[in-house]
């Protein structure tokens, strides 16, 4: 593998639900060790994009490569190998409510038989500490946590096995501004220091500017602009300008009736 092979590469990905077209001809590259943030309006298919890469949804057309290897249409064994490299933070946390918090965090470690149970618990508690949750939280059940705490547990679960690639689906929504910044710092640390590749989704532009090397904007099924974070303010794209400044008037029309 050469340096130029992107970690993740999407080409011409089409995904529709019945007659509703969500992605149409989407292209995206995420380089090794890069932190890319995808922004875009609600319901434009950002979460769908992540699920397509993970094989949870099947695109109708296109190609998705991870480490230079096509992952669409691969068998279950290979899929498991690919997914072992990836940690995923779901938008809705998706914690297992039949397991205590620490077992949620340690689930991937235990499933891959990387460590023994006591060791897994130790790792889980240290990952919980990284997202600002104490050891006492580890013994609680997911239903006993607030929404923001669930999100942070899910984040700890996503990074528990130290994956090469991490997907963060709205890591800071539902958190207070201070905790959001702690999480931003954590994501930056994971990508800069550990060298993981991150693909994040966020609506929070402050967070995007902080965690991203590159920002890509998804609109009407395609990436309409992608570039370094420093260039986002002079993108020259009316849609991007409207989105990052949060104006109701502009080329993007929200389907609302007054």
């Amino acid at each position, binding site marked *: 593998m050469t340096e130029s092979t992107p970690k993740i590469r999407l080409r011409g990905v089409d995904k529709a639900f019945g007659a509703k077209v969500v992605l149409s001809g989407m292209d995206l590259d995420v380089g090794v060790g890069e932190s890319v943030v995808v922004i875009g309006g609600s319901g434009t298919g950002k979460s769908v994009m992540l699920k397509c890469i*993970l094989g949870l949804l099947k695109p109708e057309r296109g190609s998705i490569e991870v480490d230079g290897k096509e992952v669409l249409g691969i068998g279950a064994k290979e899929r498991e190998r690919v997914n072992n490299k990836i940690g995923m933070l779901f938008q809705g946390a998706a914690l297992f*409510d*039949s397991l205590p918090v620490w077992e949620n965090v340690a689930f991937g470690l235990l499933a*891959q038989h990387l460590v023994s149970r006591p060791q897994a618990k130790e790792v889980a508690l240290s990952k919980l500490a990284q997202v600002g949750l104490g050891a006492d939280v580890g013994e609680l059940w997911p239903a006993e946590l607030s929404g923001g705490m669930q999100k942070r547990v899910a984040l700890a679960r996503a990074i528990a096995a130290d994956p090469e690639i991490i997907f963060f689906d709205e890591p800071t929504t539902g958190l207070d501004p201070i905790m959001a910044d702690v999480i931003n710092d954590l994501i930056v640390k994971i990508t800069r220091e550990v060298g993981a590749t991150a693909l994040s989704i966020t609506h929070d532009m402050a967070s995007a500017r902080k965690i991203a090397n590159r920002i890509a904007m998804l609109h009407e099924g395609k990436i309409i602009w992608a570039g370094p974070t420093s260039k986002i303010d002079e993108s020259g794209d009316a849609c991007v300008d409207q989105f990052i400044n949060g104006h109701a008037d502009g080329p993007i029309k929200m389907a609302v009736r007054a």
Partner: protein
Amino acid sequence: MNFLQPIGRIFLAFLATAGHLIMFTVTAVGSCARPPYYPRMILRQMLDIGYYSLPVVGLTALFAGMVLALQSYTGFARFSAEGAVANVVVLSITRELGPVLAGLMVAGRIGASMAAEIGTMRVTEQIDALTTLSTNPLKYLVVPRLIAGLMMFPFLVLVADIIGVFGGYVVAVYKLGFNASNYIQRTYDFLQAEDVNSGLVKAAVFGVIVTLMGCYHGYHSKGGAQGVGAATTNAVVSACILILCFDYILTEMFFAK
């Protein structure tokens, strides 16, 4: 010819569902054959199916046996054949009522809770999360339930057989005035291994049906709470219908000679 269209559509939908179900069954049974296994999950399901269903199954069997003795007594009294009560009770309980009643009751209890649990996991993306955490959801969620159902239903039916026959005995001896040792002797003379065995085989089949329906409908539930509700109903209804259907097929295989 338009009236044929809806019929055709319903028939096609039925075939599609049957196809899905068969595919699901084949994949699920196929994953039983290969590791990893989850002994904790199997034990938890065995406890849930086997132990916590005992009160329901026991009470059902007790009253079924009691009413059977009472009914057959009033019926046979017309032909002065009251002595056959013991035979009727033991035959009906072991061959039919034990497995079928236990199956139906546990379908309500277990099928519904499995569909609701797995359905909730589906709509809250917990099943997707399993996949991303190097765990095959079929092996983690479905296989332990199938194995537990297959093993615990025969156990439950054995308990139901014993309690059901006991219920008949209680009514016959304490209400209808039968001689206790004669009643037991008649029961014992008429009891054949084949009757019990056929009931246990039925139970194993019903166990697979109930757990499979719970898992299948839960696994494929869509939408939110409403979808999970629909999955629960479908799991129980389809399990009950399939139990009665397979009961006939198995009876035909065992006893039609």
